[in-house]
């Protein structure tokens, strides 16, 4: 049967037969890199268009509808505009760090693509520390933001970067604890094992109360981590004039913009993997017929469907809620999310020990 995993395997075999194993690995690096970059470009186009349409409909507008069929070419036109724009570097900026920061943020996003399972048996790197790797790498991107804010030599950028740093560092905690809930239930931190453990039902159903609490906390925390409204104080165009990327223009700005959307995709993909079963089709207990019908839908479609559902949820938040103040933001994390997720962790440990999940 033709599947994405099959194609990937045959390419791998052909490369290993034609070249020595070291060169084959190197060629695979290049191939995967090109694929990831083109996937990024695709994601940028799709997600920006989706965001503009979703926001438009939620605000009783129509959104882009002139360029191309139903406005589909709008983001392409915007991209061309950004590419041909001059990338300005301010005079007082630290030139090296200023130009390096957007790449660091994007590299962090690229590294995060590695453990995501896009379809059945289709994963760049099934690393055995799965979720730990994700937590580790996602902490690199905050350095890129801090670097951008500092090197711009602009007080708004510096303030934005500091807000962003404080925000990401504190919300990483509750995101990590929410992930831990599923790790306890699944008994493994390798992502393929976590997906395999959801064969007879997704964790959000199987783990009932603690899984739902963890899911809500995870969604809130990752919304904050990706610096999106209602947690967009780091950018806050009305007070900080776009925060850490005030001074960026042209393609360097586009890289920040792109990495924001790629990060949304990544956190939603991880959320879908942990709570909604990744590429696993919807299976209900022992309903053999129903399960069999669900298996006919390709696994990549399941994965993409779940991920885009979560992305839509996060966009829904953005266009509904007003921005939080910095003290409200830290109160929410340290007085509500963190105690609740710690308590939830205790609860889930108890439930896992007693075997009270399905």
């Amino acid at each position, binding site marked *: 049967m033709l599947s994405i995993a099959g194609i990937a395997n045959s390419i791998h075999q052909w490369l290993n037969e034609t070249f020595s194993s070291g060169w084959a690995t190197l060629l695979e690096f290049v191939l995967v890199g090109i694929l990831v970059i083109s996937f990024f470009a695709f994601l940028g186009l799709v997600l920006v268009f989706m965001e503009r349409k979703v926001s438009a409909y939620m605000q009783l507008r129509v959104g882009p509808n002139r360029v191309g069929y139903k406005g589909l070419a709008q983001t392409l036109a915007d991209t061309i505009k950004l590419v041909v724009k001059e990338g300005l570097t301010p005079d007082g900026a630290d030139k090296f760090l200023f130009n390096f920061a957007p790449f660091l943020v994007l590299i962090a996003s690229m590294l995060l693509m590695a453990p995501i399972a896009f379809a059945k048996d289709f994963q760049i790197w099934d690393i055995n520390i799965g979720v730990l790797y994700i937590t580790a*790498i996602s902490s690199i991107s905050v350095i890129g933001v801090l670097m951008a804010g500092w*090197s711009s*030599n602009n007080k708004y950028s510096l303030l934005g970067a500091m807000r962003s740093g404080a925000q990401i*560092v504190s919300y990483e905690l509750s995101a990590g604890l929410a992930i831990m809930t599923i790790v306890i239930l699944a008994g493994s931190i390798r992502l393929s094992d976590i997906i395999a453990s959801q064969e007879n039902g997704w964790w959000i159903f199987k783990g009932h109360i603690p899984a739902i609490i963890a899911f809500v906390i995870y969604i809130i925390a990752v919304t904050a981590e990706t610096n999106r409204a209602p947690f967009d104080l780091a950018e806050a165009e009305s007070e900080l004039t776009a925060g850490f990327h005030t001074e960026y223009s042209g393609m360097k700005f586009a890289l920040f913009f792109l990495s924001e959307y790629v990060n949304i995709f990544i956190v939603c993909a991880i959320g879908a993997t942990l709570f909604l079963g990744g590429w696993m089709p919807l299976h209900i207990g022992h309903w053999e017929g129903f399960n069999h019908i669900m298996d006919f839908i390709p696994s990549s479609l399941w994965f993409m469907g779940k991920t885009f559902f979560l992305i839509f949820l996060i966009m829904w938040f953005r266009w509904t809620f007003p921005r939080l103040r910095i003290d409200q933001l830290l109160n929410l994390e340290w007085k509500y999310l963190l105690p609740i997720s710690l308590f939830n962790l205790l609860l889930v440990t108890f439930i896992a020990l007693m075997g009270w999940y399905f």
Partner: protein
Amino acid sequence: MSISAMFFYALSAAVLVSAVLSVTSRNIFRSAIFLLFSLISIAGIYFWMNYEFIAAVQTIVYVGGIVVLIIFSIFLTQQAGVSLPAPMKGRMIYAALASIAGFVLVVMQLLAHPFKVDNSVVASRGIKDIGHGLLETGANGYVLPFELVSILLLAAMIGCIVIALKPNSTTA
């Protein structure tokens, strides 16, 4: 030279070059960033050795924790953007002498120690083994250091809360 060895040399070069740049840079923020590169490259070496857990912990602790802390303290410092003045000649000579002495000492130790190549295959230790090992009291158990570190962290956290608490004039 195999590709694997090439990766090792590239990573080691990255560690050393960024470490040197971190020390010689006259801008404190750049020093912090080069330190970050050095630490990430060390994590890369761990990945190259297939010690993923150590690599991830290295990244979490040093990149997500310590470097962010350093950067924040730089942000909160007065005149952090001004490059430092070049150090005095005399100090430079003494510092160079001290570091050369340290380097010689380390190299002597390295040369004195016969490194035996152990070809026996070590069973790769999974996360479960690491977890059990941390709480074991037996030969390979690390329960005492684990608990000591826990108490240290707890003390630090309580200290933070005590410092951050505003003295309440009405109740005190």
